[in-house]
């Protein structure tokens, strides 16, 4: 393209990170801290902490539609409109369906956040560690491939990221959900404690605990150094937090990386492909198209971290073809884009608790109780594989009687009288990665940045159906033992994707013939490319995955820099 040498030099870095979400932010922080000149490419616009949170301090009555999304938007964007957080206060952080089309071979709600910080602004902030019951799952139960790592490999990295991110939790001493480096928990309320007791009394191996979350309940110096402050229990997290009370790339890793002076953050940069050099046998850089001007530029680096979010990472790798890799970068095995999995969030169970009339709660909290997986943990015991974790919460609200009109209605609306306690729970089921759950490139349709559209072909299976039923049955039994009344179970039948936990496609594994990445998240076949977002996941377990992405990223970055120093890559 006739670039001058100077220009090439200006476009050459030690490392390139593709994506600035929860894992990309960590890659940026780690690589910059280790002294690498790092280019961070983000396809969306810049979102700076606090400055770019336009709704963060708005009162409910300041929203023209009191939070509701206007119908012209929901009708044009049916997919994103199904997301619980797509509301008037945060809709500017979500990708609209029409702006970034994809092909649903089967129904799949692909929820995306294209901006600096990605979905880390919007996540539910639940941070539960994996255990060996999770890492050993595929090998024990005979699906996918064996994870190339075990809990001991990642445990120190969990600790490392937890200390920096700030995780609130209780040391519960459970082998299926290892304890971490915790800031103080928020106490469970009376009904939750009661349910915890009932479950403990009636079952072995079932536990109701405080849901560990990425909130600063009692910040330490490291968090003040990041410019963050204590969580103020606003529970308006999806707007972006002016206190930095929860972990996001925007509040935490990105400004930290910026402070090193080693980061070059380039928003509005859509990476079209990773450039592979057949003579050097490695990736040399990336080709970027500017989201607005459509100008194409190449950037070069010694190592590349791919953190574009699970499905977009698959898209990018599949679109990076070369003579050496005609079917996508690092895809010697042919598994790239296959064995995609997700979490089954379909079932809910709600009920009423008629006791505890003399107590309530005050204020708000950013988490609730959590029930770690209890099915098939120590051995296979049901007719389905694996199991589910569950969220659990209890709360009490004002009775708002809207009958009648006039003065009496006004008086009713002013009543402070409380209704009964309500309890609710939802499942978080492990799904089994299958060769038939795939993403692939459209052969004829492209977006306006020249990228092939993504075909998504992902569905539930019988195992998932059985698990929905089992959750409903087991939770009904537990609720019944607790004496809860008016028990209502529900199967939302929501499409895969709405869980926003899509994973896999470029899985880790020991064998290059059946996996894309090794135990360091490094491509078997292209040693200077690392994938540390959801695409790397061999299986899904039940835990919210972000904490594991953070730990894997920090671990991989440490390894990559060591290898770089040893001139091994």
């Amino acid at each position, binding site marked *: 393209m006739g670039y001058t040498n100077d220009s090439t030099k200006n476009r050459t870095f030690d490392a390139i990170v593709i994506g600035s979400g929860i894992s990309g932010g960590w890659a940026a922080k780690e690589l910059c801290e280790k002294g690498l000149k790092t280019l961070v490419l983000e396809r969306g616009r810049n979102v700076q902490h606090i400055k770019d949170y336009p709704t963060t301090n708005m009162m409910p009555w300041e929203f*023209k539609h*009191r939070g509701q999304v206007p119908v012209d938007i929901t009708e044009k964007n049916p997919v994103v409109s199904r997301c619980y957080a797509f509301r008037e206060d945060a809709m500017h952080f979500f990708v609209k369906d029409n702006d970034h089309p994809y092909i649903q071979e089967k129904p799949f709600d692909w929820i995306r956040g294209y901006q600096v910080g990605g979905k880390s602004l919007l996540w539910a902030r639940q941070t539960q560690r994996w255990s060996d019951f999770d890492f050993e799952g595929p090998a024990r139960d005979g699906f996918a491939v064996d994870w190339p790592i075990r809990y001991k490999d990642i445990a120190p990295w969990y600790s490392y990221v937890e200390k920096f991110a700030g995780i609130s939790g209780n040391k519960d001493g459970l082998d299926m959900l290892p304890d971490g480096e915790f800031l103080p928990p928020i106490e469970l309320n009376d009904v939750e404690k009661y349910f915890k007791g009932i479950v403990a009394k009636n079952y072995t191996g079932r536990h109701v605990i405080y849901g560990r979350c990425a909130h600063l309940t009692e910040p330490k110096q490291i968090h003040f150094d990041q410019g963050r402050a204590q969580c103020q229990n606003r529970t308006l997290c999806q707007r972006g937090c002016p206190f930095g009370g929860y972990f996001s790339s925007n509040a935490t890793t990105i400004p930290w990386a910026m402070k090193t002076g080693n980061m070059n953050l380039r928003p509005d940069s859509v990476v079209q492909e990773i450039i592979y050099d057949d003579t050097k046998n490695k990736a040399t850089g990336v080709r970027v198209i500017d989201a607005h001007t459509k100008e194409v530029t190449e950037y070069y680096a010694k190592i590349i971290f791919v953190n574009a979010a699970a499905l977009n990472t698959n898209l990018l790798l599949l679109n990076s073809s070369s003579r050496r890799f005609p079917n996508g970068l690092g895809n010697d095995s042919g598994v790239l884009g296959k064995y995609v999995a997700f979490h089954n969030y379909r079932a809910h169970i709600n009920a009423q608790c008629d006791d505890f009339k003399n107590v309530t*709660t005050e204020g708000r909290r950013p988490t609730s109780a959590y029930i770690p997986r209890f099915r098939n943990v120590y051995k296979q015991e049901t007719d389905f594989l694996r199991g589910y974790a569950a969220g659990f919460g209890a709360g009490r609200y004002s009775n708002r009687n809207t009958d009648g009109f006039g003065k009496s209605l006004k008086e009713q609306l002013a009543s402070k009288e409380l209704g009964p306690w309500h309890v609710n729970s939802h499942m978080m089921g492990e799904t089994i990665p299958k060769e038939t759950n795939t993403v692939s490139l459209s052969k004829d349709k492209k977006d306006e940045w020249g990228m092939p559209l993504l075909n998504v072909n992902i569905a539930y299976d019988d195992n998932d159906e059985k698990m929905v039923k089992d959750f409903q049955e087991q939770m009904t039994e537990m609720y019944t033992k607790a004496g809860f009344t008016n028990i209502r179970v529900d199967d939302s039948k929501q499409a895969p994707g709405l869980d926003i936990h899509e994973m896999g496609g470029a899985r880790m594994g020991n064998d290059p013939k059946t996996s894309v990445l090794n135990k360091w998240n490094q491509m078997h076949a292209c040693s200077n490319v690392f994938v540390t977002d959801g695409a790397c996941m061999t299986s899904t377990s039940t835990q919210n995955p972000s904490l594991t992405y953070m730990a894997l990223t920090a671990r991989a970055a440490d390894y990559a820099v060591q290898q770089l120093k040893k001139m091994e890559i």
Partner: protein
Amino acid sequence: MNINRRSAIKQFIILSAGVALLPSCKSNKKVSLYNNILINEDQQAMLAEVAETILPTTDTPGAKDISAHLFALQMMNDCYKADDREKFVKGMQQFEEKVQKEYSKTFAQCTPQERQSIVAAAEAHKDAKDEAQYFYNTLKRLTVQAYTGSKYYLTNIQVYKLVPGKYISSVAV
């Protein structure tokens, strides 16, 4: 913050403009603020009076004070599907006609007692499926939402804390 203030001011101007139109309720001029619903100034004035009958001004603010009918119209215009908007407008016309037939005047011209009887009758039929009932039920729901979501309500009645700062897991009631 700037953006917030700007949008708040903008909203205030829209609301004031709506209020300013009210006194001229003799005309049948279409109100152009709402691009998705066909409504004239008389009808808008009627909505204000129905809302005020549902939540009257007492020693505390009522529906008119918080422009509940304008919020209802805004929501109807922006957040309801075309079918529902049509049903609402049709129901509003039927409601008007019913009042006209029974009292030979408009709702706005009725005495407070007459207005209360009309609303009481609508309340008595709240499970009916006709369009006039849909109109009334929807207007009531939006009036209640306007009130319970208003600055007045959320700073005086059930106080909303933007920054609670804490969660107390057990409080005696």
